[in-house]
């Protein structure tokens, strides 16, 4: 029964975000600050993970490609489609669930246990709207850019790894990444990214907002935020893939 309690409270929480902003200019500034905090500060880790993902996909595809009838440029094609369709939107968003999700839950959770949220409410400010809405808009807007960067860096990483290890010539790899390119795959990845960004910010904010207790509970909320966001990302990955690709 507890799951119905949380589902009901989650939807009420979501509904509470969409009240009229007290000051539109303040919300706009907060969206920009959150875009910097969620997006720009994640660029390093996103690039690092993407470049190694692309490199490993390329080398492992070459390793598994034992049939001489399959042309070598297929390695580039596999690296491209794997990065675009699955690795960039899903793995990168899972990483962001860990980095951004835990940060949101602990920030809002700390504000709850130190009565900062109560202070907002007593002033007559819609605390959920003020704290959560800008994070959600910022994440939904900035995450697609991070994923696009991840796609580009991952594919480039595969090319560098192929070149450095000598397992695939540049010409074959470049031919592969251009071969039968479907722009819809990028659209599909963007749809997934937006849904995942919403899941991460809403679940993490919910966990933080309803933290009750002290430092220990803030840590527990942060952990729950990461676990629930990650599990729901995987479930929605499957649902969206089935709905759109089949």
């Amino acid at each position, binding site marked *: 029964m507890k799951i119905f309690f949380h589902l009901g409270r989650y939807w009420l929480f979501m509904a509470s975000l969409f009240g009229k902003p007290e000051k539109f200019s303040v919300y706009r500034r907060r969206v920009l600050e959150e875009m910097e905090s969620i997006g720009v500060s994640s660029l390093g880790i996103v690039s690092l993970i993407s470049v190694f993902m692309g490199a490993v996909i390329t080398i492992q595809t070459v390793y598994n490609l034992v049939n001489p009838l399959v042309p070598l440029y297929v390695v580039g094609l596999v690296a491209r489609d794997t990065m675009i369709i699955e690795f960039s939107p899903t793995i990168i968003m899972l990483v962001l669930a860990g980095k951004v999700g835990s940060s949101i839950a602990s920030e809002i959770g700390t504000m709850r246990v130190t009565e900062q949220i109560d202070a907002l*409410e*007593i*002033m*007559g400010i819609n605390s959920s709207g003020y704290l959560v809405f800008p994070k959600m808009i910022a994440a939904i807007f900035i995450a697609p850019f991070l994923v696009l960067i991840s796609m580009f860096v991952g594919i480039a990483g595969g090319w560098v790894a192929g070149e450095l290890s000598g397992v695939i010539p540049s010409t074959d790899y470049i031919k592969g990444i251009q071969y039968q390119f479907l722009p819809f795959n990028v659209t599909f990845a963007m749809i997934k990214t937006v849904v995942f960004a919403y899941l991460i910010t809403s679940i993490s904010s919910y966990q933080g907002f309803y933290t009750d207790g002290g430092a220990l509970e803030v840590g527990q909320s942060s952990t729950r935020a990461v676990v629930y966001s990650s599990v729901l990302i995987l479930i929605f990955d499957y649902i969206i893939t089935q709905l759109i690709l089949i």
Partner: protein
Amino acid sequence: MIEVKNVSKGFGEKQILKNVSHRFEKGKVNLIIGGSGSGKTVLVKCMVGLFEVDSGRIEYDGRNFSEMNFKERKPIRQEIGMLFQGSALFDSMTVEQNVMFPLTMLSDLSQQEKTDRVNFCLQRVNLPSSHKLFPAEISGGMKKRVAIARAIAMNPKYLFCDEPNSGLDPKTSIVIDELIMEITEEFQMTTIINTHDMNSVITMGDNILFIHKGEKWWSGNEQEILKSGNPEVDEFIFASKIMQHLRK
């Protein structure tokens, strides 16, 4: 003036407040006292709308606050200032930004007017040169004073203080008490303080409400409380060695 009428509040099976009624006077320092777990904080949280009452009503100058929705409560909430036990300053903002925050969010003042108001409030709490410091960089007493400055920034009619002396040394506690008394008189606010501090009770209890086991047990002023004759009140008031000594 704030009136609490027959307020009851429980959590699950546990009844915390039982039919509490009291009138908190304008221009006076009204104290809510009682032992730990007696229901003081729950009463204050019901009064400011952080908890909803199960029955009864809370009236702000005749306006029935407890029956209003979030939107209807907004104008009253903007007349409330609150000093929290832990100060509840926003960690990511400087002292100046903390005090300016309600003005930015809830008023249409120009930047210059807001800056003037912040300077006035910080001056009033004797913190004229701490504008650029963050809460983590100032002492507990300074945090309380910044929180008072933030609470009075919107020129409130009602000031709530939840254990304003907790975690402060006796000298700083006196400074905070004096500041609250001065501000209450100066701005003719209805001030309600939830406290354990006996010095506060003796020095500024114009109107004291003693809560025991969730019920209104006794009320009166600082003179009357010392000779109330009520065993629970006496047990609370004369619990410390100093108070026992004074009694003798």
